[in-house]
């Protein structure tokens, strides 16, 4: 494969996940010359069923499904352990290859959190600024949803596809939720409930995360294909090593990338868009330090890498005296956003989920039990069948001490310092997790079920949503990019990523990433 740089490029996009793909597709469709540089490989879609087997046969750690780990992906973790490589995929399609596909809009309050509650900071844009882009993003990804959510922000049109109906276990929860005073509703899914955009309806493999063999779940390979159809050039296995700038320190002049053959090239362009996620984006800026920018590129605020956030999981599960048909799909069909908006500054946002994959799956139980024959079948039957579980996402507020920085001694396969994730939970986040557990407990009490497991503040884990590390803001002294997603410091460098989120909310971030990417592309196109 020819990996030499292209000539006369309008825009160089770093990263072929959903953000980079949407930027590339939009600009290429507008007639611009676009090059996308992706660090990871281009996976063969014909291998997806084999990847599913890798997932279902638990010999294999989950990170092997998409070939993460090893010297290329080395990292360090300080404070609370952060399992970075389980939370991302490098390759064309990015982390949408393994995501679950939940796509909610942020609430209006999320954009004005400090003004309305005293928590966190305000975004430099409002919901109304992003609203048309949300609609476009829902169309681009293909979202199945319904307008039955009384807590959702205003929207202008129906979802592109009808929502997936509630599950059998949703029905088990419904009466208990009503008794507990909790209102439930459908879930917007980036997953085809009918044929859409040349992809089939969901056929129920039940392995959405980490792999959808049918392609019914959206992933960014779809958009990359559209971008290439429109003329964009997408190069894989070309990790960008650093960005170079002009003598004045006003413009980026090139992205220096490595190739599998051992070459190093520089891709020049008029505009550059970083779209490599909440960890690699700040890392690349920090790796691009120079005598003009000794603390890293676009980092005059000192905010690059700071304010790292994720959503925290809160949950509990148990068994009921009824079949609950778990693991027959791999996604969620009912949630409650009733406790999303914060009453004051006492807690962050909470999103409650009702899982359709509680307890062990038949294959998982069969392969890990150790027994065989009649006894195994009996034990799998006992292990499977009547589990229920609630999950939930809890907001983590931005704190400067949570950060991505370059490790002082540890390097990757190319000799670059690895990202070090410095991460801990604040007291308010802990209290919000406890509040989520209280709400979940109230439902289990109404069910008459004693939870067999509870995930609370002590054993919570991240939801694989990397946010905040190049925050958006109006003040160049406090933020990295402005309301147009352009860095304050360099006039032709933009960032399309959850790294620009000033606050995290508690909604899965990809729809907002997509909306911001489309907005970013429009601003770049205007400048071009």
């Amino acid at each position, binding site marked *: 494969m020819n990996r030499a740089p292209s000539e006369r490029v309008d825009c160089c996009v770093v990263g072929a996940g959903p953000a980079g793909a949407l930027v590339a597709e939009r600009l290429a469709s507008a007639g611009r010359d676009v090059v996308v540089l992706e660090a990871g490989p281009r996976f063969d879609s014909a291998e997806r069923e084999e990847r599913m087997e890798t997932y279902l046969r638990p010999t294999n750690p989950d990170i092997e499904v998409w070939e993460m780990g090893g010297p290329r992906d080395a990292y360090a973790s300080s404070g609370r352990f952060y399992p970075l490589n389980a939370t991302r995929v490098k390759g064309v399609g990015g982390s949408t290859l393994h995501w679950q596909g939940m796509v909610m809009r942020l609430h209006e309050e999320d954009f004005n959190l400090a003004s309305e509650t005293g928590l966190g900071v305000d975004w430099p844009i409002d919901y109304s600024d992003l609203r048309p882009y949300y609609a476009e993003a829902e169309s681009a990804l293909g979202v199945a949803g319904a307008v039955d959510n009384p807590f959702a922000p205003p929207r202008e049109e129906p979802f592109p596809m009808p929502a997936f109906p509630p599950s059998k276990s949703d029905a088990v929860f419904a009466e208990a939720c009503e008794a507990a005073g909790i209102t439930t509703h459908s879930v917007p899914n980036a997953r085809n409930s009918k044929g859409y955009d040349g992809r089939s309806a969901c056929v129920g493999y039940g392995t959405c995360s980490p792999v959808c063999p049918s392609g019914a779940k959206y992933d960014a390979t779809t958009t990359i294909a559209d971008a290439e159809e429109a003329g964009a050039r997408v190069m894989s296995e070309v990790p960008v090593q650093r960005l170079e700038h002009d003598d004045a320190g006003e413009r980026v002049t090139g992205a220096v990338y490595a190739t599998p053959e051992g070459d190093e090239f520089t891709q020049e362009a008029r505009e550059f868009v970083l779209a490599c996620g909440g960890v690699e984006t700040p890392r690349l800026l920090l790796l691009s330090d120079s005598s003009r920018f000794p603390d890293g590129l676009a980092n005059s605020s000192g905010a690059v890498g700071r304010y790292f956030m994720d959503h925290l999981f809160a949950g509990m599960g148990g068994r009921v005296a009824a079949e609950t*048909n778990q693991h027959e799909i791999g996604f969620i069909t009912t949630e409650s956003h009733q406790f999303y908006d914060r009453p004051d500054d006492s807690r962050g946002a909470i999103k409650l989920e009702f899982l359709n994959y509680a307890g062990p799956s038949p294959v998982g139980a069969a392969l890990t039990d150790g027994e065989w024959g009649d006894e195994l079948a009996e034990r799998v039957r006992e292990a499977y069948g009547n589990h229920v579980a609630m999950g939930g996402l809890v907001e983590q507020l931005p704190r400067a001490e949570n950060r991505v920085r370059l490790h002082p001694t540890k390097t990757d396969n190319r000799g670059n310092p690895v990202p070090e994730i410095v991460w801990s939970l604040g007291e308010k986040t802990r209290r919000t997790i406890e509040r989520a557990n209280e709400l979940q407990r109230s439902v289990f009490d109404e069910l008459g079920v004693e939870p067999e497991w509870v995930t609370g503040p002590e054993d919570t884990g991240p939801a694989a949503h990397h946010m905040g590390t190049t925050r958006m803001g109006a003040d160049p002294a406090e933020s990295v990019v402005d309301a147009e997603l352009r860095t304050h410091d360099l006039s032709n460098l933009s960032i399309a990523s959850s790294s620009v989120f000033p606050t995290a909310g508690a909604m899965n971030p990809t729809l907002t990433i997509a909306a911001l990417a489309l907005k970013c592309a429009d601003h770049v196109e205007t400048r071009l």
Partner: protein
Amino acid sequence: MELTRRDVLAALAAVSAGCASPEDATGDGLDDERTLVALAEVLYPATVEGVGEFVRRYSLARVEGRSAYRAGMADALMELDEHAETFHDAPFAELSRDERDTALRELRLHETDPDPEGAARERVRYYLVNELLFALYSTPTGGELVGTPNPPGHPGGTATYRGERR
């Protein structure tokens, strides 16, 4: 409960074997299908019928075009037979069902983690025991044995999760 052609296709769909259907599997199969079937008869519940046909079609298709996997399976079958010959004076396939079960426990397969590159018993666990259990429990018949017609790995549609059963 009978394993049918539908189960073979479902199992193959779950693992993307190298050929489009079991009928397409020609040549390059396993030399020792008899041992594999004999093993499946122990691993699968006694109520499951059609084991021989299921295993033959499934396994043939599974190894088609996958020389490394076929070699791993063949090697593991040889290990299993060697154990049977050494301790029971007969090939594994010629032992009674109870003797086969005993042989598996002598190999401590009930407490062995699978590893395709590990010790002999770890490879037997990976290439034979887990291979056959995976095939069964990712099919509609295997799923129904334990309470679901649409286990993970089987593209059984989006009706059953709502409680609709065939």
